């Protein structure tokens, strides 16, 4: 195997794939990136067994073939070569020679045959989604992914086609929850997604996918079975195992008859919550909202007798209510809202509250109160 390539071209794809590689690996081959040259293209692959990223780029191929080299080391070397340099890469005899200008590196390789295969399997469902839509689905839900590992089925984003039972249009939905709050975001159902199974995409795949989605404005092609998802666009392919578990029946916890509508200016509200909650040092950062006609008073106190309050004008005409929240959770949600107007739909101090952007039905957040 031999090819020549421009340093920054190689660096870009290497950066993409190497981020999958775990820093500490018990299986040596998993610390390596697979390189394959042929047909005027170089193809790089890295995997952690659950998640695989694969990217190709045009290069000047001297001899086709394949090998594997230590991913992080390879990446560091290419990173330190001067911008605009040409890099010549040759594999021979269990070694990878990297030559650029007057620099020569020899790396130890492992045979390409030992690199875990992708085991494609059948992917019966295929559809294409716009990259902006996909970014939107991920960005507005990932904050609610659970980090607590015993309920592993909450450690990812649940993606499914909504039934449309409520008479509405069928949508493609992304849902995440950690048991304290929930985020549900939907986009129009792409062609071909109607029959898709509900899938749970693991957190790490979500993170990598989100990074890669930034590099394109093209449509993103998604293929899946009920155990695997493959996402491809441009010359990149990301394949991941899905979380094998049942996502809870989340619809049941979304209230439908919360009628205490509080309308706030989102930025003003956000800043006030942030200010007032400074006082509480604990992780739970409780903040109390006291609402009566046209007025919202935010208050917080800490066990040590410090306290803070702030009042603001709001749109509210229902009966007075007092309700507590984890300020951190509240801010996580307001940060998802881009527009200036936010709405809180409450029932009582012990029942789920809905937060959403006024006039935007595509995203909905459910927040469980805190009793303070």
């Amino acid at each position, binding site marked *: 195997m031999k090819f020549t390539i421009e340093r920054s071209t190689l660096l870009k794809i290497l950066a993409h794939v190497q981020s999958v590689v775990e*820093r*500490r690996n018990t299986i040596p081959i998993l610390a390596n990136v697979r390189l394959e040259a042929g047909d005027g293209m170089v193809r790089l692959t890295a995997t952690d067994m659950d998640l695989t990223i694969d990217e190709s780029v045009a290069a000047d191929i001297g001899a086709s073939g394949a090998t594997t080299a230590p991913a992080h080391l390879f990446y560091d070397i290419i990173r330190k070569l001067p911008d605009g340099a040409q890099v010549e890469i040759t594999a021979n005899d269990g070694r990878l020679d990297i030559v650029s200008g007057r620099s020569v590196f020899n790396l130890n390789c492992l045979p390409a045959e030992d690199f875990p295969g992708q085991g494609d399997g059948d992917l019966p469902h295929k559809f294409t989604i716009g990259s902006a839509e996909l970014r939107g689905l991920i960005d507005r839900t990932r904050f609610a992914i*659970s*980090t*607590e*590992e*015993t309920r592993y089925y909450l450690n990812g984003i649940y993606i499914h086609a909504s039934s449309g039972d409520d008479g509405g249009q069928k949508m493609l939905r992304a849902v995440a*929850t*950690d*048991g*304290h*709050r*929930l985020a549900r975001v939907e986009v129009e159902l792409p062609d071909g997604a109607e029959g898709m199974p509900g899938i749970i995409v693991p957190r790490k795949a979500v993170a990598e996918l989100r990074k890669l989605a930034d590099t394109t404005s093209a449509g993103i092609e998604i293929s899946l079975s009920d155990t695997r998802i493959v996402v491809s666009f441009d010359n990149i392919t990301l394949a991941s195992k899905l979380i094998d578990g049942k996502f*809870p029946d989340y619809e049941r*916890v979304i209230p439908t008859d919360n009628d205490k509508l509080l309308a706030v200016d989102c930025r003003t509200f956000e800043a006030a919550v942030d200010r007032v909650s400074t006082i509480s*040092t*604990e*992780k*739970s950062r*409780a903040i109390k909202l006291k609402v009566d006609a046209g007025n919202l008073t935010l208050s917080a106190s800490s*066990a*040590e007798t410090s306290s803070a309050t702030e009042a603001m004008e709001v749109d509210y005409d229902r009966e007075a209510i007092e309700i*507590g929240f*984890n300020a951190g959770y509240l801010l996580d949600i307001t940060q998802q809202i881009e527009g200036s107007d936010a709405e809180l739909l409450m029932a009582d101090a*012990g*029942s*789920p509250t809905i937060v959403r952007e006024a006039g935007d039905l595509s995203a909905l957040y*459910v927040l*469980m*109160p*805190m*009793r*303070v």
Partner: protein
Amino acid sequence: MVHNSLNPEIRRLPEIIVNQIAAGEVVERPAAAVKELVENAIDAGATAIDIAVRDGGKAQISVTDNGHGMTPDDLLLAVERHATSKLPDDDLVLIKSLGFRGEALPSIGAVARLTLTSRTADADSAWSLSVNGGKIGKPVPAAQGPGTRIDVRELFYATPARLKFLKTPRTEANHISDTLERLAMAHPGIAFSLEIDGKRRFQYWRPANDLLDNDAQLFRLAAVMGQDFADNAMTIMAERQGLTLSGFAGLPTLNYPTARHQYLFVNGRPVRDKLLFGAVRGAYQDFLARDRNPALALFVDCPADDVDVNVHPAKTEVRFRDPGLIRGLIVGALKHALAEAGHRASTTVSQAALGSFQAQSQAPYRTNTNHYAPRGAAEAVAQYFAPPNTGTAVGIGLPDLDAGPSARDEPFSEMTSGEAQDFPLGAARAQLHETYVIAQTADGLVIVDQHAAHERLVYEHMKTAMANGDVARQVLLLPEIVEMDEAAAGRISDRAAEFAELGLILEPFGQGAVIIREVPALLGQIDITTMVKDLAEELAEYDKALGLKDRLADVCSTMACHGSVRAGRRMQAEEMNALLRDMEATPHSGQCNHGRPTYVELKLKDIERLFGRR
């Protein structure tokens, strides 16, 4: 305090007192004989007592003192039953000396070959008297300086049955040594030495005369309990209704699997009393795992009529008129001291750390004493490697700390050495192995065990919140159903009301399950299932009559453990600094709930020592 009778005139006890005195064997084993003899020496005002035993005390026990001695007449009376010089008012209620029954010497004389040799300060010669199996001889002149020497040979030769019950000489010798240690702790002003089969077991010196009472006591405790104890001891001092409690208690970080290192003295008398162990357990429960025990030596002084020492002939048990008062005094004083010491992690811990660092540095570079290299060269090399000698802390550049992949790099640079490190626990500089936070303080460095520290903080916050009755609860969007065996589910459900006060709202859910609806908010995201199962398991061990509040410490610990940052989680710089600040603001945060330290501190001078710069 022991009041030595300075007037050693011996009188016969009236019949009534004789009957008041509980009958029973005074001397059940060699250690008991030693105890009696040494107490006599103490009562005689001795300042130095030397003990020698052979064959576990069976072959020989001799006790030599420099006390006021006895006249030949005294000798004869001393070996008669119920002759004592120590009950001047014939009032058993007002016992101030260690001996009072006048039965120790006669009892020993009845079962052994006993020889008393004594000389008073103003006599020109000593006199000696022997008793063999109860047969009293005649005083004969002997050669000896002022003071008394008691020799007991062939103990129990007259009662072979008793002899059979004795353990190996080694065991008996250990009992003797234990007994003497306790007496020595109670009498820091007296020098003690013990020789076993010709070999010196210990020598406790008298403290220098200019030491204050308290320091003298600690000096003696250090000699008996070890320097570790003295270095990690908190001073205990409390007074209530005529009772005084004094002494020293070890920091929780100095702990042991048994309660063997707990000593109680009442009016100078070593006693073994369950009351002490219970009180100590109560006071330390927040700081120690159930199977660990602190070390301490406590001294209660009370009016003689508040305590009955005549419960047992061996006088190791006492009965207090008001045990609740004593218990309260002990628990209160210990808790107070523990609260004050909340930030003092045991120095033994950092000593040990230091020790192991030093062990490593033994290897190739032994530069401080022997300059094998030509002098000039060695100095040049030393200077080359030495950090700039500014005398103050040198900012630790993070890249240097980044030794392996598990050290993380975070932009810490904006934290200047000036500000954050002025805090007691300093400024976080790095996280190592995703388990330890390294912080730089004004004069050293602090290593925090993030899990232990966080667990402690959660626990303390929970306790405060519960005390104020305002435990904030996070309502669960997805209530969690926890399945377990029926009995366990029943135990949990039975206490639902109590759990509610602790912020855990649950209901029974069919048979063998409970449903959790709300959790204490400060636990954050937790593994509820495991936590509830752990709680159920603990409930099985509790006394049903006890409310959960009585086991608050245990319950909180269990919850805190689940709500804490486990080892192995990466933390952001702000998160680490917040942890440090929170620790400073929280009482008792120097130890985790299991008594392990949450942080250790290495002073710059310790570090300098490691490098042989001092």
